[in-house]
């Protein structure tokens, strides 16, 4: 055991003599780990934003069989029937807490120059109860819109990601001018990338009566079951009932699966390239140490400490590469906010989240690459024919 430590320590001290080739492992693995963590932190951030949207205490009703609010259309004759459903919470004044919301899509401009794009942004028409029951939604600037006026309150991310959204600013669509009267925040959830207006204003301006979705505050989360049963028993209601949180959580699934697969393929190809680099470096390290290794063997050291020292060198280099890669990805990506097209065909802003779990995953890749890159050269070092190696000098 002691011999292993001695030989390994000797070797680690001698590494500075081959710093150039050692850097190949460090840089190669840093690149793999940075790309891996960077891309995974993107899916993580997207998932976090959507999973953080909505509440288990609210039920979301959509037309039966649709996957997103955009394609849902609930007839206006159906809406009054919902007030009598069981489990609907009532306000202090006895009004049922139900918001019949109409979601339509508008185009906003994002970016400048070559990357300029016209992107889809949800315009959500909400009823007063919709603001009341979403306690996470807070007005940050200006005031709320007035019913009947073409006024908009924009989410914080909408304001930051797209051009021309500020309190007092105007937007022109459907042949009329809309004024932005306020900015709301909702803890960075998906609603922050929306524009909100009064539900009736949205319905009349877009000529679309009825609702896209209906949001209901439940008396207790357990009341969902009763509500579901009541809806399915009533033949007039062709609706799907889920919790608001479950609806948004499901929206991230496709994105996470697709990007996850792409990330693994990319990182795997890069890892193969880095592995060849690591093998190259370690073989050349062994050949540089030929005389040293042969001498050690000649004076009685066994092959094991020599092999271990090669493995330790490879792993040390790989893990330091992994650490550098993890650090780079953390500095470059953590908290970086971007927008992409979500399931609802509209933009969702999210921040890259470099979590401890992802950092650990990157370091595990580095460790595995180090072990794989050191293994064959270590065997060669242990088997080096002593006489030939000494004569080579």
């Amino acid at each position, binding site marked *: 055991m002691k011999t292993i430590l001695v030989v390994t320590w000797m070797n680690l001290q001698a590494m500075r003599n081959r710093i150039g*080739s050692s850097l190949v492992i460090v840089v190669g693995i840093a690149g793999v780990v940075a*790309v891996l963590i960077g891309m995974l932190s993107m899916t993580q951030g997207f998932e976090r934003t959507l999973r953080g949207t909505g509440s288990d205490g609210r039920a979301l009703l959509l037309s039966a069989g649709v*996957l997103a609010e955009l*394609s849902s259309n609930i007839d206006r004759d159906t809406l009054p029937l919902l007030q009598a459903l069981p489990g609907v919470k009532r306000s202090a004044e006895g009004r049922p807490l139900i918001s019949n919301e109409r979601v339509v*899509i508008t185009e906003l401009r994002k970016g400048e120059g070559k990357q300029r794009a016209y992107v*889809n942004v949800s315009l959500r028409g909400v009823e007063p109860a919709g603001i009341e029951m979403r306690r996470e939604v807070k007005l940050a600037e200006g005031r709320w819109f007035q019913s009947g006026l073409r006024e908009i309150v924009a989410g914080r991310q909408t304001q930051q990601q797209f051009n021309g959204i500020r309190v007092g600013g105007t937007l022109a669509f459907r042949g009329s001018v809309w004024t932005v009267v306020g900015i709301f925040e909702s803890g960075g959830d998906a609603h922050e990338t929306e524009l909100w207006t009064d539900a009736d204003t949205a319905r009349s301006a877009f000529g679309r009566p009825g609702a896209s979705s209906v949001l209901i505050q439940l008396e207790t989360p357990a009341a969902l079951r009763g509500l579901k049963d009541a809806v399915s028993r009533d033949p007039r209601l062709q609706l799907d009932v889920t919790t608001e949180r479950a609806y948004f959580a499901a929206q991230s699934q496709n994105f996470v699966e697709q990007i996850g697969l792409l990330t693994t393929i990319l990182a795997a190809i*890069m890892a193969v390239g880095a592995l060849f680099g690591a093998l*190259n470096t370690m073989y050349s390290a062994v050949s540089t140490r030929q005389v040293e290794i042969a001498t050690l063997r000649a004076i009685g050291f066994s092959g094991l400490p020599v092999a271990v020292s090669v493995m330790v060198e490879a792993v040390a280099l790989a893990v330091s590469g992994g650490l550098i890669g993890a650090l780079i990805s953390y500095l470059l990506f953590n908290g970086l906010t971007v927008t992409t*097209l979500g399931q609802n065909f509209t933009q969702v802003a999210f921040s890259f989240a470099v979590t401890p779990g992802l950092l650990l995953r990157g370091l595990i890749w580095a460790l595995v690459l180090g072990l794989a890159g050191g293994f064959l050269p270590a065997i060669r070092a242990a088997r080096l024919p002593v006489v030939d190696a000494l004569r080579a000098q």
Partner: protein
Amino acid sequence: MKFLPLIWAILWRKKIRTVLTLLSLVTAFLLLGLLQAANSLFSGGTLNLNAPLLITQARVSFTNPLPLRLLPQLEAVPGVEAVSYSQFFGGIYQDQKNFFPVFAVMPERWLRVFSHECQLSAAQIEAWKASRTTAIVGRRLADRFGWKVGDRIPLVSQLWPQKDGSRAWAFDVAGIFDDRTEESCPRMGNMYIRYDYLDEARAYGQGLAGIYLLRISDPEKALAIASAVDAMFENSPDETKTQTEKDFSLNFARQIGNLSLILNSILGAVFFTILMLTGNTMSQAVHERIPELAVMKTIGFTDGGVLRLVLAESLFLCVLGGLAGMALASVTMRVLTTLPTQFPPMHADLNVWLFAIGSMLGLGVIVGLPPALRARRLNIVDALAGR
């Protein structure tokens, strides 16, 4: 050229090192080929969308259908040859992962606008016109699911329930159209059902046309015609936005995000790594050969000759690995194209190859030059003495 055997022999002096370096180069250029092809696809380089087509959508968003009543006005615009309208159907086939675009169109109008690019046999055209519940599909889509003419395709519409509230629809394949131009035509992955059937059977939305496609006679006048169209509907609830089909598609890709930034960042990381790796290999290779190089100089190689030899060695290594990597990338893309995915086929076009070859040469020079200069400066006496 006469030194080629020499370079070859030098490279294989340390077999493991050369093989490993080449393999690293192969993976680097495999990634370069794939990423650049994706990049070129998203930036429109390989999109075969140069037909003289304009798309007129609702200015507020293309998801907001325009009414059918704009049709006569659009047809009357000078320079517009034919107008087709197209209502997005939002159909899902078996599973939402199988996504492909389905549009409801009128056959005669569709043929007038698209028959320059899409080919459908006369018999299949007749079959499509004859029955309202039929559909035509692009060759790529038909191959993806193994559909044949006469098959009945069940679709669940996300957007349009039937009058009885059911979202289940079914269409008979009347024809499969081919591409007259290039195989990268994105329309080959689409399905076209009949608008008259949809409009009559859907529970609501009657008279909504979706977006309009305008075939124009002179591509040079695209901008002028687009502004003329949009001016007609200004300040109405049905304000329009008209742009070329290509701009429409590019904008669509940009909605997904700044893809080229992501792709280029990864490429940058790959390149930096490969630069380190090959640079290290070359410097080792020259370092080991110092006595040899001195001997070569002794027998009459000039300083410049030695420099060129080392440089040639580095270039040869990079080009060999690079070409192999690009070849692998091309094969990979060909295989990917035959797989049943919703992605449009990617291929390495001329620009991608030029970029790749430029990178090979650049890499070869950058990593070869420092050791080559060192070889040129080599002093025979010192080198032979091992100093």
